[in-house]
């Protein structure tokens, strides 16, 4: 695959797997309004994934469905961060805070890409992600600066997610190549902005920025956590069982 195709696939897989995880909250959120919120955020992410996978597949004649449903675990190149189980509500909010802050900075820069398709997807998506980030920030403030119980659980959630965030900002030969061509963004270049944003929010929420070592990474190379196989089994089961009858 070309560098642009692989780069696009990475972003598409992040959005797809994050959407699948969030969709797991449907009918299980703490209140109806939150059920709608999480479902709609999942829908936005799924929309981003569809555009990105469609574009990635266009380089070698694969459809968005081929890419979503017919690849095996080792062929997915999302970061491990997005595949972690939902945990409690605090864990989901912590992940949404970290992930939407990351996606916001990424798409904001990518909207200036020399690749017109990536630029268009990013320009549309950054507005959606701004609203997701806003939502995660409001909840982080409420839970962090809420009751003793909500504070403890929010802090625990931050610490559970934190070791996986380093992977979001990993640079490699591919990100450097697409960044040099003005087509993609090297995520390492905006990690200081991310850290400063997260820092400000956590302080205001009376929470503490975790000091924990990064976990072993590898999602971009197809190495995933033990949770990924279960996620794919659920997501891909129907299409693989009834290959003739299902088209999404």
């Amino acid at each position, binding site marked *: 695959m070309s560098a642009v195709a692989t780069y696009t696939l990475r972003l598409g897989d992040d959005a797809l797997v994050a959407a699948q995880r969030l969709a797991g909250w449907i009918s299980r959120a703490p209140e*109806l*309004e939150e059920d*709608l*919120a999480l*479902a*709609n955020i999942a*829908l*936005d*992410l*799924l*929309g*981003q994934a*569809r*555009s990105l996978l469609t574009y990635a597949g266009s380089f070698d004649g694969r459809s968005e469905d081929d890419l979503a449903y017919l690849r095996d675990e080792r062929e997915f190149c999302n970061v491990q961060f997005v595949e972690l189980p939902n945990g409690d509500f605090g864990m989901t909010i912590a992940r949404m805070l970290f992930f939407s802050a990351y996606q*916001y*900075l990424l798409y*904001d*820069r990518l909207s200036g890409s020399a690749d*017109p*398709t990536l*630029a*268009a*997807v990013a*320009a*549309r*998506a*950054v*507005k*959606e992600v*701004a*609203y997701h*980030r*806003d*939502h995660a*920030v*409001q909840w982080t*403030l409420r839970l962090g600066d809420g009751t003793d119980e909500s504070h403890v659980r929010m802090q625990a959630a931050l610490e559970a997610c934190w070791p996986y965030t380093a992977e979001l900002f990993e640079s490699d030969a591919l990100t450097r190549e697409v960044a040099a061509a003005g087509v993609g963004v090297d995520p390492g270049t*905006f990690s*200081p*902005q991310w850290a*400063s*944003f997260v*820092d*400000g*929010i956590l302080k*205001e929420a009376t929470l503490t920025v975790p000091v924990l070592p990064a976990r072993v990474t590898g999602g971009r190379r197809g190495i995933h956590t033990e949770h990924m196989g279960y996620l794919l089994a659920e997501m891909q089961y129907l299409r693989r069982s009834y290959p003739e009858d299902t088209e999404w």
Partner: protein
Amino acid sequence: MVTAEEVRELVAAVPDPEIPVLTIGDLGVLRTVDVGDSGRVEVTITPTYTGCPAMEAIRADIETSLRRHGIDDVSVRTVLAPAWTTDWMSESGRRKLAEFGIAPPAHPARPALGPAPGPAQGPGPGRVPVPVELAVRCPRCGSFDTLVVSRWGSTACKAQYRCTACLEPFDYFRVH
């Protein structure tokens, strides 16, 4: 042979599947209509949201409507750029929304999100993004005394509000 203007009028009149009081012309998702030399019609539309599930229905409705008028050779393309914003909604669309009981977008969309927060202007308490949907007018009694109930409503493009004057809940087509 039909002209592009005639076809555009037909396409613009197709109702939005989620908010049927609006046409896709009102909503501003119809970008262009071209008629080729062979009579082939090419319509381009743009989604209100990347994942807007109504796009498939809109595409099918456009094809059905044109077929009913004897136009069979139709292709409907979806384009993402320039991104749709609520500013594309027509004045008559805003009026129809309010009459239907949905508060229309309360102010123009932010032109662009501008530079992402960097260290120089980094986040402090003053930079925490707070919802900017201030002063939404109740479509029933006209009061501005309204509260957000939920930041998302029955669809991704709406939020749920409640009027503290007449006490009725209502949908708000939020600015985006």
